[in-house]
Every structure is written in C-alpha cells, then in structure tokens.
C-alpha cells in the first residue's frame, strides 16, 4: 500500500514564524503535491513537483515555498506565517506516466495565532 506521512498532525504557530511541513512517501512516486483544504473551498493546490529539485506553482502559491531535495520528501515552507494560513494542509503523491490517481497523507491542521 502507498503510504504518505506528514510530520505533524497538529501545529500551533505564531504570526511571523517560519513553519516547515514535511511529507514523505514510500512508493517511489515521481509526483508530489501540497494542497490546503478549507471549509467551502475544497482542495486548493499550492505547489507540486515532478522530480527532485523541480517545483511548479499551483493555484495559490503566494506566501509559500517548497523544497524537494530527495525523491521521497517534499517540504512546504511558510516563510512568515499569517492568520489566513490557518488551514488543513494535505500532501499527496502520484506515479508519473500513470493515471492521475493521487494518494494523500493524513493532513496537518495548522493554527496560526
């Protein structure tokens, strides 16, 4: 079974802090994604990566950056957290060249005070 893990289930941070969210997948997937999910807005794509050291902006990249130094690991960075970044953050991975079937991690609920 594909397993996608996220470093934290719950995080509480203060405005202005730098926040790191880490995602690891164990199925050698090329593609990795970061979404945020908010009530009424559904899943919104922040960034994605097709390969190591590659990154592409999604629909809402402002205020975020990412890092992919190893194939299995994809990090989301909030350079200076703001209250409007309070959300559920979901990491996903998928196999390149196959269907667009994504496998999700358990999510990180981030609260920015």
């Amino acid at each position: 079974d594909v397993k996608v893990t996220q470093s934290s289930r719950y995080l509480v941070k203060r405005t202005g802090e730098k926040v790191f969210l880490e995602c690891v997948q164990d199925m050698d997937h090329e593609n990795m994604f970061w979404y945020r999910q908010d009530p009424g807005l559904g899943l919104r794509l922040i960034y994605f990566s097709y390969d190591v050291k590659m990154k592409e902006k999604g629909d809402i990249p402002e205020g975020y950056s990412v890092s992919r130094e190893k194939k299995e690991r994809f990090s989301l960075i909030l350079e200076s957290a703001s209250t409007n970044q309070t959300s559920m953050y979901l990491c996903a991975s998928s196999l390149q060249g196959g269907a667009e079937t994504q496998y999700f991690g358990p999510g990180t609920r981030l609260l920015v005070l």
Partner: protein
Amino acid sequence: QKEVEQDPGPLSVPEGAIVSLNCTYSNSAFQYFMWYRQYSRKGPELLMYTYSSGNKEDGRFTAQVDKSSKYISLFIRDSQPSDSATYLCAGGKPGGSYIPTFGRGTSLIVHP
C-alpha cells in the same frame, strides 16, 4: 464555473439506504475519474477509480461515468454509519499534467 461541481450537502440517510452521490464536470478532456472518501480531520483516501464511461463495482460501491452528459455518480448500497464522511469526486486528463481536478465534496451522514 468550477470544472467539477458537487452539492456540498449534507446528505442524511438512514442506515441500510442506497446512497447516490453525484458530480458534474465541464472539461470534455477528462478521461479518468476518481472518488475519494474523507473522514473528519483525516486525509482523503482513494475509493474508486474509473477510466472513460461505464460502471465499476467494488463491494457495496459502484462508480458510474456518463461522458455524454458529463455526469459522475457513486452509489453505496446498504449504507452504514461508518460510511459517514465527505466524498470527493475528481476528473483527470490523460498524458499531461497529472493533476486531477477535484470537486468540493459532498458530506454524507448515515444515521442508525
């Protein structure tokens, strides 16, 4: 207009009922269709995957795609309280960005 539309619900049904969850989509290029189930405060898990039109059955779950009307359905037979969750549908295009387009989800409540 979003590319994939779902009624957010909640849809409330008694245990044992047949549940019908539906999506419409606008992008004719979609060939892959997925249903995800998401329990409260958890990540979505892949429930069903279908390619092009037709039906696919897995236990109590049946996914149906009608490309002529751009309509996706998920049927749940003999619904259980453990089926209470949000169901997300998604469509994807072949050979391209490998990023599916998700609906916003329908909340299902199955009460005993």
